């Protein structure tokens, strides 16, 4: 058995989503190799070589791989696929973009977003935005899997694998145009350790930002919103936490003025600790909250700000 893990990295270091995917790979069993695709990503490959339990690191570089274009990743991975029983990638937007493409080329049914490895061919994955868990057994000889990082602990450092360079593939039908990384001091919603979310109770976009932004800044949190708040125009669409928005699982989730529609609960109920602040004591959000504060946010949030110092 051998497993190929396609790394998530920023060119100079590997993100901890890669370490977590290595843990998932170790549960499948066999030798673990890491593939680093990029352009000028030697430092990231060296960093990947330090992850414990890794046999070797493959570094593939090209212009298309620098932008992680799906077609370029496909062209790079296909020639390597013969040597592996499973190909894993973190379920990031990149992993979700290229993994099914590789699977289809190999005539393999991909298994998306696993949260548990039951055995080398059986995996658990959330469906219906986490309202149900599906255990699936694959009959394909080769597996192509994306791994939800929150489901696994990070593999430790302490390895000293060798790094081999190979020729990277390219994407003939696709041209990179531009990239716009969010220049916010706040963490990204999907990766934040703390998320504060506001609901329709805020009443306006001005009020939403006046209440949520200072609190988020004080906590070092990302800002989310309910669909109701987004639909009412109080918060931008990419703030939306819920079944049709982002699914988040931070250490701490603070829902403010959010009633807790099913749609919203599906997007945040895997958070470690949930706090709900709502003036309606019967709001469904309290049924999933570890700590509930029945209060108007207009008084509760300033008090919280004071308590935070």
């Amino acid at each position, binding site marked *: 058995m051998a497993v190929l893990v396609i790394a998530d990295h920023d060119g100079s270091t590997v993100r901890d989503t890669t370490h977590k995917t290595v843990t998932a790979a170790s549960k499948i069993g066999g030798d673990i190799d890491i593939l680093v695709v990029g352009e000028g990503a030697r430092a990231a490959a060296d960093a990947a070589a330090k992850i414990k339990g890794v046999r070797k690191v493959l570094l593939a570089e090209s212009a298309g791989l620098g932008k992680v274009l799906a077609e370029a990743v*496909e062209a790079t991975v296909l020639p390597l696929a013969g040597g592996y029983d499973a190909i894993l990638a973190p379920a990031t*937007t990149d992993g979700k973009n290229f993994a099914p493409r590789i699977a289809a080329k190999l005539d393999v049914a991909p298994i998306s977003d696993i949260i548990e490895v039951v055995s080398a061919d059986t995996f658990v994955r959330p469906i219906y935005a986490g309202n149900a868990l599906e255990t699936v057994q694959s009959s394909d000889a080769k597996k192509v899997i994306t791994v939800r990082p929150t489901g696994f602990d990070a593999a430790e450092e302490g390895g000293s694998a060798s790094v081999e360079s190979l020729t990277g593939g390219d994407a003939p*039908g696709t041209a990179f145009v531009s990239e*716009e990384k969010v220049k916010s001091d706040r963490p990204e919603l999907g990766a934040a350790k*703390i998320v504060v979310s506001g609901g329709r109770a805020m009443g306006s976009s001005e009020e939403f930002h006046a209440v949520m932004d200072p609190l988020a800044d004080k906590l070092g949190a990302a800002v989310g919103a309910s669909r109701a708040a987004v639909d009412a125009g109080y918060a931008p669409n990419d703030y939306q936490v819920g079944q049709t928005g982002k699914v988040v699982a931070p250490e701490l989730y603070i829902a403010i003025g959010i009633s807790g529609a*099913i749609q919203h609960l599906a997007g945040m109920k895997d958070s470690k600790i949930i706090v709900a602040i709502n003036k309606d004591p019967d709001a469904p959000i*309290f049924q999933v909250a570890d700590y509930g504060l029945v209060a108007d946010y207009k008084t509760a949030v300033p008090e919280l700000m004071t308590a935070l110092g």
Partner: protein
Amino acid sequence: MSNPIFSGHARAGTSMDRLMKVLVPVKRVIDYNVKARVKADQSGVDLANVKMSMNPFDEIAVEEAVRLKEGKGHHAADTAGEIVAVSIGVSQAQETIRNALAIGADRGILVQSDTDLEPLAVAKVLKAVVDEEKPDLVLMGKQAIDGDNNAVGQMLAALLDWPQATFASKVEIRDGKAQVTREIDGGLQTIEVTLPAVITVDLRLNTPRYASLPNIMKAKKKEIATKAVADYGTDTAPRLKVVKVTEPPKREAGEKVADAAELMAKLKSKGVL
């Protein structure tokens, strides 16, 4: 041929000598406001007597296709000529197609299947539909909110050897290419793909309209061709066995706190602040 007369019906939005044909796959799923309930025998999710709707991401794809045709938003007039909605599923998926027709799709194809096909099988059937229909663009939801696989669009593009542009929040068509802004972790990426291509859409692309009553009435007269999966002669055998479907661990309601100070104390004791 430089004489503009010979460029015939070329439109502002494309360099093609005809209008674009857009194929929009749509899926019938449990309505997003309904909580999925796991069956007692752990064989799956209970779909009996549950409100079903078009997958919300597919609705966004239909809306974008219709805007391409109408020349709405930033799209040049008449970028798209014909919009074909296709659904693979039980006979009731016809309602989902009707819904797409009411938003503005021109005709529908129902590929009937009584068993739930896996994403790979769906991609293979869609490839066969594409081979027959020869669209210039496939616009579809990035994922269905039931299986949450986020895979069919990418697999369809692979099987067709077409470029893919996933998680689109902006689409511009010109000169036989699509410039697509994609929602990626930590920001946005803009790429240009040569048509034909597969574009999968994300939430921010647009807000779908409500179908007007006259359009709902008009949709009833539009054509829906009915096919069977077997008509396409593709291998749709399952590769994945669902061992069981279970409820996720239940969250218990916690405790109520009196004020912000007590809340802070609790969070500090838990070590999250």
